[in-house]
């Protein structure tokens, strides 16, 4: 596998996924969709981490920094999702909307 698929494939895929996620979080109106975009970005980052582990690690068994990092990212993603969605629900409850453009109390 490693000899058949160049690293660039994975990196390009990750970059594309990251850009898609970034677009989602920048351009969607729905706050939940924004969060989904962020999840996509995190996943893209994880792909990169794992790919570098697989291709770059001098000893993939003993040196699993990439995997460990990806695990932590997943954990943080879970935490982020929990808090973020709790916030969205709280906002929805008080303002009756999840449109990010309408959640702009902190403007001038």
């Amino acid at each position, binding site marked *: 596998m490693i000899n058949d698929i160049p690293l660039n494939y994975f990196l390009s895929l990750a970059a594309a996924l990251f850009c898609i996620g970034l677009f989602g*979080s*920048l*351009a969607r109106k729905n706050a939940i969709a924004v969060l989904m975009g962020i999840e996509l970005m995190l996943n893209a980052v994880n792909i990169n981490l794992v790919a570098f582990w697989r291709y770059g690690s001098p000893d993939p068994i003993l040196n699993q920094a990439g995997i460990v990092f990806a695990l932590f990212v997943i954990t943080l993603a879970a935490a982020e999702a929990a808090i973020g969605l709790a916030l969205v629900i709280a906002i929805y409850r008080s303002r009756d909307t999840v449109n*990010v453009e309408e959640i*702009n*109390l*902190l*403007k*001038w």
Partner: protein
Amino acid sequence: MVQNFTLLIPLFPLLAFAIIALLTRSRNRLSAWIAILGVILALALSLGVFLEALAEGAELAVNPFYGAPIVWYPYGTATVNFGWLVDPMGSAMLFMVPTVCLMIFIYSVAYMRHSHTGKDGHTIHEDDPRYARFFALISLFTGSMLLLVISSNLLQFFIAWEIMGFCSYALIGFWSFRGLKEHHIDDAQVGRARAASIKAFLTTRVGDVLLMTGMILLFITVGTLDFTQMFSPDGLNNMLLGEPPIGALQWPTLIALLIFGGTVAKSAQFPLHIWLPDAMEGPTPVSALIHAATMVSAGIFLVIRMYPLFVFDSQTGGFSMQTVALIGGFTAIFAAVLGLAQNDIKRVLAFSTVSQLGYMLAALGIGAFVAGSFHLITHAFFKALLFLAAGAVIHAVGTNDMLKMGGLWRKMPITFLTFLIGALALMGIFPFAGFWSKDEILLEALRLGFFSESGAAPLVQFVFISLATAAFITALYTGRQLFLTFFGKPRDQHFYDHAHESPVTIWVPLAILALFTTVIGFWNTPFAPAFTGYVGEAGLVGLPVPFEHHAFDQLALISIFVSLGIAFGGLFVAYFIYGFRPVGAGQPDPLERLGIIYRALASKFWLDELYGYKINLDGTARAGLLVRFVGLLSRFSYWFDRTIVDGLVNLVGWFGRIMARLWGWFDKHVIDAIVNGSGSVTGEIAGWWRTMQTGNVQNYALIAVAGAMAFAILFLLRSFT
């Protein structure tokens, strides 16, 4: 090796204090027992140390029990340590202090129960409202005295000294609160107690300041406060190194005098004796405690502790010992004379204490170290006895005034007997304790003053004459007291009827103290001077020269007869005045015939009015002339400050205000304009710029992404080129 536990001795009473104060305040009887238990434990341990010290013998003087294991704080390369130091005199104190204190404690259990007549006519016995507090305080008092006795350095000594100062304040003013009417303590007495406690505290404070100054100077010159290091030859010689402070006055003299200042206040020597008579306002056990075992003994003990310094000073030509002797001798006779004209049974004893302390200091001053020390021990026993017995009388009769007593021996024989033993000891009549110790002092004074090989010494001669006269007057006023109190006919039937024999817990301590008073003197008879051998044979720490001691000789025999003669003479005169023809009810004191002299005596030579603090019978108090003069001076200073100094200041202030107004105009119209202008300009710009804050998170995120990208591109361009 009991000596290693010496440091624990003061711990027990202090612990008792803590327990009572913190836990058992509301349980009177329990508190009393805790206090007594504390003293008993301290006594047991003290006796252990004492016996061990006795076994060690005179050698202990130069190689005392010593240990300083507790590091308090370091300074420079050395440290200040807490520890213990027990030399022969210290061990004797360790024997005396807890013994006497224990007696006083036991005595207090019953004494602090007051009896009064209730509404229905029955006699009600009731604890003093602050019963437990009393025991807490006397525990603290005892503990600090024990701490003082075993102190290994002057700082530790000073701490204990100060705690005692506080305790004396609290205990003298023990009845200085209201709500005691049913206990026969009226507003006047409350006022007196309050004033007396303040007076005692402030007067002794004068001495404390002197002592502290001396201590600081000592530390500066010697570099240590540890007794053993301080009295090493090097330590004392260090004092001579520096420039003499004031003219011909050299360092040792100055320091010794300052330290002696502490003694003068604490041991109530002229001219700072004024607090002691008024201290009689405290409960009688407190008086006994202050006068016998703790407070005033501490003053004497300070001189005893610092004796090497005094000796060193006199060897190098200073006059500190002469000062001690002079003040002691003068106080001895001065206070004795004053004691003559007092009608308060306790005040007589108070002046007698002052006088006896003068004896001790005079003895120490002329170099009779052993005699002075021994008198400290014996005096503690018989003075405690006298006070407690007098207290028993007061407790039974209900008044302090001797002129209202009379014929009490029939009513309270045991108390009378014990009081008699104490009085005889005080007069110096064979075979009681006072006789042996007082005779020793007189003998030493005689020997050193008139029969010294180095020629006659006028000062010592003065001391001898003063002390001999004082002995005569002592016998006289003690006799007066005896006759007025116990003999003759009752002068006030009401008080007489009220009198009764003391309860067991009161007379047993009296009996024990009487026993001690009887036998303690034989510790140091001229024929068998055991105490001299123990305390004086090897000198002191840092002064390993034996004190001069003479075998029993003709002079001693003469001295015995002289002192006995003086004592009996005084007693006879007293009998002639008061016993032969008893003072009847309502009659004035025969001494009043002396006129102006009597009035001078009765009002204590108007010293309180001159520089002290006069406490009237009705509880009001008035400062002395000197004090008032200082007050006037301060008032004048106040006026000066208010009118002249303040006027100047106000003038400057007015000028400043004018200037400020000018500045204010400038500030308002020039600087503010600039500030406001810049502010409004900024506001305008900001109002235009702030629309950038859309409040939309995604906007911000987009800008952040764009910024990050811009930086990344910059970075890449730079790294590629």
